[in-house]
């Protein structure tokens, strides 16, 4: 029954370790053993079949029609058809052209240009209205503008992402596949209860709670282009939202019956130059919030209650794109738009630099104990692992002892499967990684190729084991209904019977896929009594229906 065992591959890299404050580690001269992990996977399902759940160590599937019935009866499975959303049909700039009165005085126009476009906008305005200003002023502002543009293009050639528009930047660096076209732009489970927040294409956020009849809809004037949402741990109300120009922290009272909380419930956190925000992460202790923007070389650490932020400036890399806080709270992964990422330790906020060989770090996830970091690099089809040895207890030095070895743990290069519908090529670059809170399932969202029909985006799920040695075992592919590709995925933070993977599909559907297994050592099982085990003799079809979710909600 079990798949052939997948060995642990540890390829040591030669590490040059400088024990400075910001440790520089150069990975050089390593060899990647060519191995194809996907070849060991069971083939993808034929068209029309969708993955329902995992039970007895195998992924069970059902047909689409039967699946849809179940989906619609389940309260937490949602469907947002694209047509139902009222979208903003015009952008800011187009409306500006329609309303701006061009007969205003030069002063008014200059003031407006200063407000809208800053210094360059002002210079642009002065240069353009050369009929009204003295010649020396228009010429000198033109020269300054040219100089600025030359300098920014030089800067842009160093960091190409700086020339992108903020929408493009969000799409490029988001963890969501094809973010700009995605109906569900962000998704977040509450870390302790069964509620979740969904950010939609129309810039609204809805909060679903199975225990409550109301679904609050959050809208705010500044809430545009939501890139990420996350609930504050150890808190029932606070939801952080990464927007285009600022960071919003909503306080949504779970007992309130209001369906439209006023914008007074939201705290606005902003810092000059820190936009657009592509990633946010709460500390697991709930005290701090970090936010990242590709335009800003500083990572902001916010004390949300007092609305004060500390910028942690490191120039290399040209920005920060993705953040991930380790579950034990000791480290933060911060990737940059360049081939470089940093691992911060959170005691004294020092960082280690990890230059990558090929591209930027696209995604990363931490093991539940915070000792292992898996990450993927753009342009490569492998998953790397860094192991952080525990600091010896009670050592007063504040820098944690960093990992000594980087290892390739899985190779997801393209593999052809023969299915009844024809050959399907699976593999390639990786969009995002998610590790379930028990540390036993690892979901990998593969980008695929949107142009080619035989290379779909697909989620590959691995079984993982940390003790006694770190292992990855193939589990299977997660597929949705035909034509729908996965865009975003997240594991439920405290599912009692194993792991629950929530997937947002390109069709606007959100589905939940349970993986039933007995976890080896999960701390919260001991607290909440022995888990009621799923009954393996039941038919799999019964698992995925509503009874499953009522069990979950109890």
């Amino acid at each position, binding site marked *: 029954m079990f798949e052939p065992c997948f060995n642990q591959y540890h390829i040591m890299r030669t590490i040059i370790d400088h024990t400075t*404050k910001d440790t520089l580690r150069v990975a050089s001269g390593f060899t990647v053993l060519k191995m194809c992990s996907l070849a060991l996977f069971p083939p993808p399902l034929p068209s029309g079949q969708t993955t329902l759940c995992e039970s007895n160590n195998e992924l069970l599937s059902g047909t689409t029609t039967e699946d849809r019935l179940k989906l619609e009866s389940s309260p937490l499975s949602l469907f947002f058809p694209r047509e139902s959303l009222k979208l903003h049909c015009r952008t800011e700039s187009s409306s500006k052209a329609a309303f701006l009165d061009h007969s205003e005085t030069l002063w008014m126009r200059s003031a407006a240009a200063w407000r809208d476009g800053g210094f360059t906008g002002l210079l642009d305005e002065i240069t353009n209205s050369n009929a009204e200003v003295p010649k020396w002023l228009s010429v000198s502002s033109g020269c300054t503008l040219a100089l600025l543009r030359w300098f920014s293009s030089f800067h842009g050639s160093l960091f190409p992402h700086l020339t992108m528009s903020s929408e493009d930047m969000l799409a490029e660096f988001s963890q969501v596949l094809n973010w700009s076209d995605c109906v569900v732009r962000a998704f977040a489970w*509450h870390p*302790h*209860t069964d509620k979740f927040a969904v950010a939609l294409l129309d810039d609204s956020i809805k909060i679903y709670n199975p225990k409550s009849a109301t679904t609050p809809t959050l809208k705010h004037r500044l809430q545009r282009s939501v890139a990420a949402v996350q609930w504050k741990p*150890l*808190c*029932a*109300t606070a939801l952080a939202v990464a927007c285009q120009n600022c960071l919003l922290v909503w306080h949504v009272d*779970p*007992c309130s019956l209001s369906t439209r909380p006023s914008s007074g419930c939201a705290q606005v956190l902003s810092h000059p130059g820190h936009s657009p925000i592509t990633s946010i992460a709460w500390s697991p*202790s*709930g*005290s*701090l919030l970090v936010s990242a923007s590709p335009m800003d070389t500083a990572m902001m*650490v916010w*004390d*949300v*209650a*007092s*609305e*004060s932020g*500390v*910028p*942690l*400036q490191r120039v290399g890399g040209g920005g920060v794109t993705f953040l991930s806080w380790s579950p034990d709270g000791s480290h933060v992964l911060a990737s940059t738009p360049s081939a470089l990422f940093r691992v911060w330790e959170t*005691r*004294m*906020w*020092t960082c280690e630099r990890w230059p990558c060989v090929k591209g930027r770090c696209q995604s990363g996830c931490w093991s539940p104990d915070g000792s292992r970091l898996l990450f993927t690099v753009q342009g490569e089809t492998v998953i790397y692992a860094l192991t952080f040895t525990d600091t010896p*207890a*009670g050592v*007063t030095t*504040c820098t944690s002892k960093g990992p000594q070895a980087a290892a390739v743990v899985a190779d997801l290069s393209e593999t052809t499967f023969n299915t009844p519908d024809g050959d399907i090529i699976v593999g390639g670059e990786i969009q995002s990684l998610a590790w379930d809170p028990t540390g036993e399932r690892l979901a990998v969202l593969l980008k695929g190729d949107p142009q080619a029909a035989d290379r779909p985006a697909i989620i590959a799920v691995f079984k993982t084991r940390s003790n006694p040695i770190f292992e990855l075992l193939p589990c299977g592919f997660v597929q949705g209904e035909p034509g729908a590709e996965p865009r975003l995925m997240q594991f439920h933070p405290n599912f009692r019977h194993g792991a629950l993977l929530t997937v947002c599909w390109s069709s606007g559907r959100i589905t939940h896929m349970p993986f039933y297994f007995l976890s080896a050592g999960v701390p919260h099982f001991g*607290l*909440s009594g022995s888990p009621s085990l799923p009954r393996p003799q039941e038919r799999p079809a019964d698992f995925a229906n509503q009874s499953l979710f009522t069990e979950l909600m109890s």
Partner: protein
Amino acid sequence: MLSAEQSSWFVRKVIFWRAVASIAWAVLLLPPITAVFVIISRFSLLHPIQAVAECLSFLTSASAIFSFILLCGVIIMVGFLNLEYYTVIPTIACSKIALLGQLLHPRQFVNSLAHCIMGIIVAWCCAITIGGRYETIAYPSTQGDGSPQMCLNEYHLILLLAGAFVGFSHSLLGVIYNMNYVSFHSVQQYKYLRFKGSLSLVLKCSATQALYSVRNYIVVYFFLGYVPKAWICKTLNLHLNSSVHPLDSIAGLLDLSLLYHLWISASFLLFTWHMTLLLFRIFVTEVYSFPVQSSFTEDAHQCLPKVLTDKQPMILKFLALQDFALLSQHSPSRRSEVFSLSQPGGHPHNWNAISKECLSLLADLTQRLIAYHDTVATNGRAKSLSTGSERKTSSESSVTSVTEDLMSPRPTLLMRTPASVFARSMVGCSQSPLTAPFTPDLDSPFASPALRRLTAPMDQCSPWFGTVQSPHIMRRAPKLWSTSTDSKVNGSPQASPASVPSPKQEPSKPSLLAQFLQNRKEQLPEASSQALFADSQAHIWALEGLSYLVQSSFSEDQFGVVQTALPSILSCMLGLQEAVDRHFKLPHASSKPVRSASSMGDSTHKTLRFALRATLKTSIYRITTTFGNHLNAVQMSAEHRKRLQQFLEYKE
């Protein structure tokens, strides 16, 4: 005094040396800053090479070295003043009058005077550095009739006076923005990185503040410039050169080069001072690791459980609490020392001492909040009792009410509020800042009889002076003030301000001045709430430390020492939660302060109450998520159980 002796070891051995290190660094950083200043002030676009050569030759000249030594002296003096005046609990003036009182306090007067003199010294060094027309105070010139005489160099004078003005305004702004308040950061960083990160902010602040100060200075000089000019001329027997434009005219002040030099000198002055302050803050707030227990009895007073209970140097208590919060979060081995039992006897002395101190801190805050709320609530109830005649006296249409019993201090009231700025957070202060009742002591700003007269109304509501400034109470003040003026106008300075007038006085029509003062007083409604939570950083650490310890006790506490305290910890936290919830329902309590962007003053104290509320909730959730339904076995009152159930269901 035993406690003074014990606590002084910390000031002597740690704080003093930290201050010395910060001053040393400030002095070390002075040469590069001065060099940059020399280059910026002397640089000319037309002759760049000549200017650089001049700068180099100046930097090696004797006058430059002398002025540099003077600057070092100023920096050391500024560092000393920082050490002398710093506080970890901000003083929050609840009304404009109180703020005025702070500004006129003798201690503050000494501070301002020192800053004025240092400003003049720095400005003199700047004048030497810039050279040219600024260099000397007098120059020989020939009068119209050909006789030579010494004339006053007004450019030199204007620069010196600018230094004095900027120094003075810096010291005043220091009071207004609480610049002597040293706040602790929740993000720990190494000193160098923190300094590097804040440097650009300090530069920006200095440049902006210099700009505003120079603007104000020019206005003042335009109107009053002739006074010092005439005085200097008379004292030094100098003459005014009539052939040169006087500078206190529009044409004279519109000299761009003069304005630039004034601004750059003011920026230099403020930057060096702000940098010294920044270094001092960074060094003083650095984490100090106290031993949890010591094997030697002579070191016992330096251990964490003992140090936490010390009242006296507030900085020691704060650093101890910070260390406690950090150890409970990050250090398993030190946690195990807290959980350990004493060797003969088997008592958890460490845990008992620490938890007792933390709980008493929290209970203290709860008491304070309840007392405050009661005062306000009594006010509300008394609304119906207020007389109609009083209503007329108030210019506002809202209620004018205060019951007379409010005017006398009630014994049940345990109002504990932070001490004034002037009470140093060091040894020698007679009142512990945590326990000082808010009665204006005699060395308060109102020590002079003339001021006492002004402050009579405040003294009359002394139990809540500065703390309870709800409009209801404060509206009462003008009436009392005007009556008390009547009694004192006739020159009876022996009337002590503490003598509370009979509450049965007939309300009289307040004078114009009284109404003006009343309006001044009511303008800071949020401040009473801020003042209530002024020392809440200590409570935040106590909450964090306790909750982390309780969380880790689930797996690390071998002897179950924490379990015995769990009911009291939970009830204390839930009680505080209730009090905080009630407080935030008051008007103005939940209004956010306006964020001041560029100022060296730390505005952390304005948001401490929000930080406390968030930390409190997080702490309770930390305990409930760790223990889950086991908490149902903990004994507590029904009301608290109901509240806890809300937390267990994630509904708070």
